[in-house]
Structure formats: C-alpha cells, structure tokens
C-alpha cells in the first residue's frame, strides 16, 4: 500500500475563537498540481500553513509520506524539509546576497560544502532565470525577481514538493507572468505542488486539481477542468461568476 504524499485528516484550526479551518480533509498524490482557491478569509492560507507545520491544528492530523507531522516529535524538522515553501511576501534574508540566501540552508542544515551548495544554487538560479543577480542584495531586486529567488531558495533543498502561499498576490501585474512561468516549468517537470492563489488563469491551465474553500470548509474538490467548466456546488458557481471578469 502506498501512502499519499500529503494526507490531511479532519483538521481544525482556530485563532482566538475564530475558526479558520473547519474539519478539512484531503489527500494529495505525487505529481499532482493542486490549487487552493476561495474568497479571502476562507482558510486556504491557514490550510497550507498547517500542511507545512507553520500552524498546528487543534484537532486532526497531517501526514507527509505516511509520517505524522507533529511538532513534538523528533523528526518534525526532517519531515518539513521535504516541503519547500514560498511566501506571499518572499521573506528573503536582507542581510545576505542572493547566492548566500540560497546556500545558507544547504550548508548549515544539509551539511553540504560551500562549493556543492553554490553549484546547486547556480543550477536553480538558472532555472528561475536570475544567474546574473547572484551577488546582489535583495533590496536591489524587483518583487518578481525576489519571488523567483525565493522559489530557487526553496528548491536548493531539493524538496519532494513545493507549497506556494499566494505567490503572486504581492506583485505588480507585469511581474506576475514571470513567476507563474517558473511555476509552470516546475509543474511540467513533475514537481508535486500545492498553490494558494487568486490567479484563475494559472489554476485553470496548470493545475490538475482544484480545492475550493469557503468559511474554513472544503466545499468542492475536483479536477481543474470540471471545476471551471461545470462546478457541482452552488457556492463554487457563485464564486466563479464573481471572479471571472
């Protein structure tokens, strides 16, 4: 019996009495590209952060490759390393150059030599198209460039899956495409991806599955084509009618 790559089992997460995620369950297999969509406050960011261990659900469990993600257990950090995470606001380290941002974790966490780490870093800078920026500090980069560096930084740990939390929401429109193209490349190469996004075009063309949330609950979970052409639930229909201009 093979384990799903990610299994979310009836998780609930509240913040000060507000229920952000309400009894959510889903399973994601290797190679799937899943988009989490829904109105603001629907719980999609909280859900993806629970999957990555940045938030800890009060009830329910998260399993990565069959192993339970538990902050109290000894292998918590190790399991989390299987997932690369890309933030809406990039979170690059301003006190380091692009190359240093990329090599820090491979050297300090994976124990690679500086040279090995740099070779890997250059490879991924190539993938995101920013080799020439390797010695720049983040404050010299545009938003789109920062996000592509952030993606490269996550990739340098060679994770099994990549999680994106609204990767393009903080970008000016003309930079969004560059980032989405990088993500599309990753998808084409078979990376398992979960993306919280408002970019309907991306979800429609790149995702093979869409999970629609509202008020913390998973309302619909179908393949992307079906979702956009013929959603089951009324709430999904309602949402789509509002967002597809």
């Amino acid at each position, binding site marked *: 019996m093979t384990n799903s790559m990610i299994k979310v089992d009836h998780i609930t997460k509240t913040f000060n009495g507000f229920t952000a995620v309400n009894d959510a369950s889903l399973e994601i297999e290797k190679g799937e590209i899943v988009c989490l969509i829904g109105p603001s406050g629907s719980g999609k960011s909280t859900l993806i952060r629970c999957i990555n261990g940045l938030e800890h659900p009060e009830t329910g469990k998260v399993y990565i490759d069959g192993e339970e993600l538990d902050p109290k257990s000894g292998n918590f950090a190790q399991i989390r390393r299987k997932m690369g995470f890309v933030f809406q606001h990039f979170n690059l380290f301003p006190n380091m150059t692009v190359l240093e941002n990329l090599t820090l974790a491979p050297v300090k*966490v994976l124990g690679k030599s500086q040279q090995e780490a740099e070779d890997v870093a250059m490879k991924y800078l190539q993938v995101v198209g920013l080799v020439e920026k390797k010695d720049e500090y983040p404050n010299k980069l545009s938003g789109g460039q920062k996000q592509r560096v952030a993606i490269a930084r996550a990739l340098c740990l060679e994770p099994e899956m990549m999680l994106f939390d609204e990767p393009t929401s903080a970008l000016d429109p003309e930079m969004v495409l560059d980032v989405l193209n990088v993500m599309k490349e990753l998808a084409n190469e078979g990376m398992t991806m979960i993306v919280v996004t408002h970019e309907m075009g991306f979800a429609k063309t790149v995702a093979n599955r869409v999970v629609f949330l509202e008020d913390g609950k998973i309302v619909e979970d179908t393949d992307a084509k079906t979702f956009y052409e013929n959603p089951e639930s009324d709430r999904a229909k309602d949402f789509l009618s509002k967002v597809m201009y």
Partner: protein
Amino acid sequence: MNAFIEFLTLDNLTYMLFGLVWSVIYGVIVVLVGTILGIIGAALKISKHKVLQSIGGLYTTVFIGTPMMLQILFFAVALPQALSFTGMRFEPTTLGVVAMCLNAGAYQTELIRSGILGVDKGQWEATETLGLSYFQAMRYVILPQAFKRIIPPLISEFMTLIKDSSLLYNIGAIELTASASVLGSRSAGIMIPYLDAGIMYIVIYLILSRVEKMAERRLAVSD
C-alpha cells in the same frame, strides 16, 4: 586663561591623558561584555519558557531599577565586606567594572530585545521552512538584522559608559575624573583640571558622534 595654560604642563597633560585612556578602556570592556550579556538577556526575555523569562525580567528590573552608583558600591565595597570572613581579597576597581557590565547588560537586553522583536515575523518563518534551528536562525538571520537596527544606539551607549566610568572615581579607580581630582588637590585650584577633563570628554563625544552618523549613513545604504 593664563592659569589654564600654566596647568597644561607635559606632566599634567600626560597624567590627564592616562586617566582618559583608562576611561575609554573601561568603556570598551563594559560595552563589549554588556553586549554579550544583552544577547543572553534578550534571549531569556523572548524565550517561551516562563522560568527563563522571569530570570531575564528579574535581571533587568534589578539593574535598570537601581542607580549605577549604588550597584558599583554594592559590588566593590559591600560584597567584599560581607565576604570578608572568607579571607578572599578583592580588587575594588575590578568589582566596580563588573557592576558596570551587569548594568550595561541590562540596558542592552532591552535594546537588543527590541531589535529582535523589530525583525519581521516572516524572517523567522522562512528559517523554519528551510530547516534552520533556533540558534542558526538567530546567528545568521535574526541577530544580524537586529544589530543593524541598534548600532547607532550602541555607539551612543558606548559614549555614556565612558562618562559613567567617572563613577569609579568613588571607589579609587584610575580614570579621567580621578586624574583631574588628584591634580586639583595638588595645585592651586580644582577648577582648571575639571575644565580640562570636561574638554577631553567633549572631544571623545564629538568623535563618537561623528562615528555614529557615519555608521547610520552606511547602514542606511543596505536598507
């Protein structure tokens, strides 16, 4: 004015400069040790363990809540007296500097703590997702950013400590104010040596102010 120029003999000047050098040395020692204590104190105060938090809180309450003069007297005079039964001999100046270090450490705790808390939460989350440990996150990402914020206040803290070292005069240490007092008691009046000491402190202040402004400008570049 004539008396002032008469005062500036080579001997007197050397004696005063000797005191000034010691004032600066005390300043350097205290600011460095104080910074180390400050990092420890800040780590205690931001810790999630209530016990560690309380220890940090107690430290800052005691050393920020009482005058430095009292702390110096406590360590350099009271403690040796209380421990005299052990037969151990203590150097008052050393103990006085210890007291100053603990005091500076408490103020640094607050400064460094505010620097750390000023670092965006997203930075911590990024280190978590990359698998860095708490110590690695602090060492490579958080503290460097926290320190950038607090370097100008740190330089002015250094200046304050050079001036505060004058309190050590009360326990017989060698430093600038003591030098001025000694020369004043020898000669015709105490006014001129004190004026001279004042001028020397001001010169140090002006130099450090300049350094602070340069540091501020340099740090703003990488913002």
